[in-house]
């Protein structure tokens, strides 16, 4: 029977490798809040600010809106897979990459890169605290990184319930405060006339701007199923993602970009808000905004590690990754030999390898499974549960990822005008599709080895 739920115990916690049961699924509003919680972070505003160096006010609007629409469509497709499958991204990957392929790609996608970003965001949290309150012991970068890291670990430890309750509490206020602060700051710096007249140091094409916006959030789009698996109806999470990115992401980017057009380089909306006496608002948006984003990083990283290593529960992974990440953030703050730029370079490098995974996932669910493997019904397209047989390595998908990553890596050197995120995504998509078509037509085995799912879902 299609989509019959096999009886599986939730050994690892928070349904890390098993389907989310019907009674635990959440509303569309809930998922919208969780997604918005990820977006509600100063780093996103700073991302928007960097657009001001290459675009004017209207170009920022167009690039933000169009880039967000592209992201919305990509993540709608990915999120819908989670809505149908009701399992995290890394478990979904078992079908397109094979069991070992899902382990490796899951670790690149979240297990390592999201854990690195957890460290970076925790350090950034410390920096914002020190900038806001420079004369307190508790707000020194390394000290704030420690208590900030612990806060972020707390909700990740609780799991999805923790993430979503905190997001409900924070998101409406965050999205009221930032536009209020932006409008006030624009007025202070000459008003809308000055904004529309402001010109960047250099101009780039709209396509480059759109690419920049896509690159900011493509990783978030790929791991959307970590949240959309909680959908009551398959489309709920995808619609929530689309709304959050198309309606709200441009607001954040414009907040950063518009302000940066009016103020000297390096002066951020945080500094402007402090200058306008909005210290408590900075503290609120800094602490809880960073919190609602970074707990998601840790949460997704823990899900990826559960899929990769047997017998260790998700909460233990949160503790392991959280403590290491917090310690690294504090050591960066103290200047103890850990290079922040090396960390960021490694994180960015891993980010290059992620869009091909997105391409493979989309090709597999929407074309390979229904039209090559004849699994037309989307609800039963991916089966999970004890006894399910996966390939140990589905080599067309895995090769699609490897070759797509190589293409994405060399794209900036060979074709600088082509966005690496897009070239990687398209390469992964087509390589997987074409190799699977050849395998099916030529009766060539596309799985190397077999893997049987255990009673605990591993």
């Amino acid at each position: 029977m299609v989509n019959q739920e096999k009886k599986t115990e939730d050994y690892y916690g928070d349904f890390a490798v098993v389907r989310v049961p019907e009674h635990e699924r959440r509303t569309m509003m809930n998922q919208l809040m969780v997604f918005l919680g990820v977006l509600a972070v100063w780093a996103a505003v700073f991302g928007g600010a960097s657009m001001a160096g290459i675009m004017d006010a209207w170009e920022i609007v167009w690039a933000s809106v169009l880039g967000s629409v592209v992201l919305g469509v990509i993540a709608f497709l990915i999120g819908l897979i989670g809505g149908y499958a009701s399992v995290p991204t890394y478990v979904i990957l078992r079908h397109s990459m094979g069991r070992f392929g899902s382990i490796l790609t899951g670790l690149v996608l979240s297990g390592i890169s999201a854990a690195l970003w957890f460290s970076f965001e925790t350090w950034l949290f410390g920096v914002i605290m020190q900038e806001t309150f420079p004369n307190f012991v508790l707000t020194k970068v390394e000290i704030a990184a420690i208590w900030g890291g612990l806060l972020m670990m707390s909700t990740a430890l609780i799991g999805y319930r923790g993430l979503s309750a905190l997001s409900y509490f924070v998101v409406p206020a965050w999205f009221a405060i930032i536009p209020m602060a932006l409008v006030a700051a624009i007025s202070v710096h000459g008003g809308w006339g000055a904004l529309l007249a402001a010109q960047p140091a250099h101009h780039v094409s709209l396509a480059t701007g759109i690419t920049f916006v896509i690159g900011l959030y493509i990783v978030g789009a790929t791991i959307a199923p970590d949240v959309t698996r909680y959908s009551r109806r398959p489309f709920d999470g995808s619609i929530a993602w689309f709304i959050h990115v198309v309606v709200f992401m441009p607001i954040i980017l414009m907040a950063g970009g518009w302000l940066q057009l009016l103020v000297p380089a390096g002066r951020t909306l945080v500094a402007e808000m402090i200058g306008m006496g909005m210290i408590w608002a900075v503290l609120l948006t800094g602490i809880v905004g960073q919190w609602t984003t970074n707990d998601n990083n840790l949460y997704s990283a823990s899900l990826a590690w559960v899929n990769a290593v047997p017998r260790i529960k998700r909460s233990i992974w949160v503790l392991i990754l959280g403590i290491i990440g917090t310690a690294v953030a504090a050591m960066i703050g103290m200047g103890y030999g850990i290079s922040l730029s090396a960390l960021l370079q490694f994180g960015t490098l891993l980010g290059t390898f992620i869009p091909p995974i997105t391409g493979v996932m989309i090709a597999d669910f929407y074309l390979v499974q229904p039209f090559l493997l004849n699994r037309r019904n989307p609800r039963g397209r991916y089966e999970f549960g004890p006894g399910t047989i996966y390939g140990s390595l589905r080599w067309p998908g895995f090769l699609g990822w490897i070759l797509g990553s190589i293409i994405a890596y060399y794209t900036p050197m060979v074709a600088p005008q082509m966005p690496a995120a897009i070239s990687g995504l398209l390469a992964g998509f087509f390589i997987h599709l074409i190799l699977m078509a050849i395998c099916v037509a030529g009766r060539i085995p596309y799985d190397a080895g077999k893997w049987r799912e255990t009673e605990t879902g591993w």
Partner: protein
Amino acid sequence: MGSLKRFVMVVFSITSLLFIIGAIVGYVGATNYTIHLVAFSVAGLLLTLASLARVTITPEGATERLGEVSVQGTWIWTSLSLVYITMSPASIYGTHPWALAILEVVGFVMLAFGAYTLFRIKRDTGVYLSI
């Protein structure tokens, strides 16, 4: 009408009143950028009224549905109470001390009221607070 539904409707009505107070005090008590506090309060009022409408049209006996829409609406205005608490003291608004005091009271009352309402709804309906 069930007691829980009546309770939620009363709470949402009082919250609407608090947003109206916030709008009036923001208009009278702030010396710069008055429109900000007024616009925020009106937006909060509209969202609360929309939540009240959802609660009102929820059929009698649909306890879980009532719990869900009540929790979602309550989260929104509870969160917005943080805006009164953190933004009213901003020096750019030049809020008079008496107006600032009222806006802070409005914010903290909404926050406390929201926390109580959430736990009351959870106790009476059993729905998740993270629904």
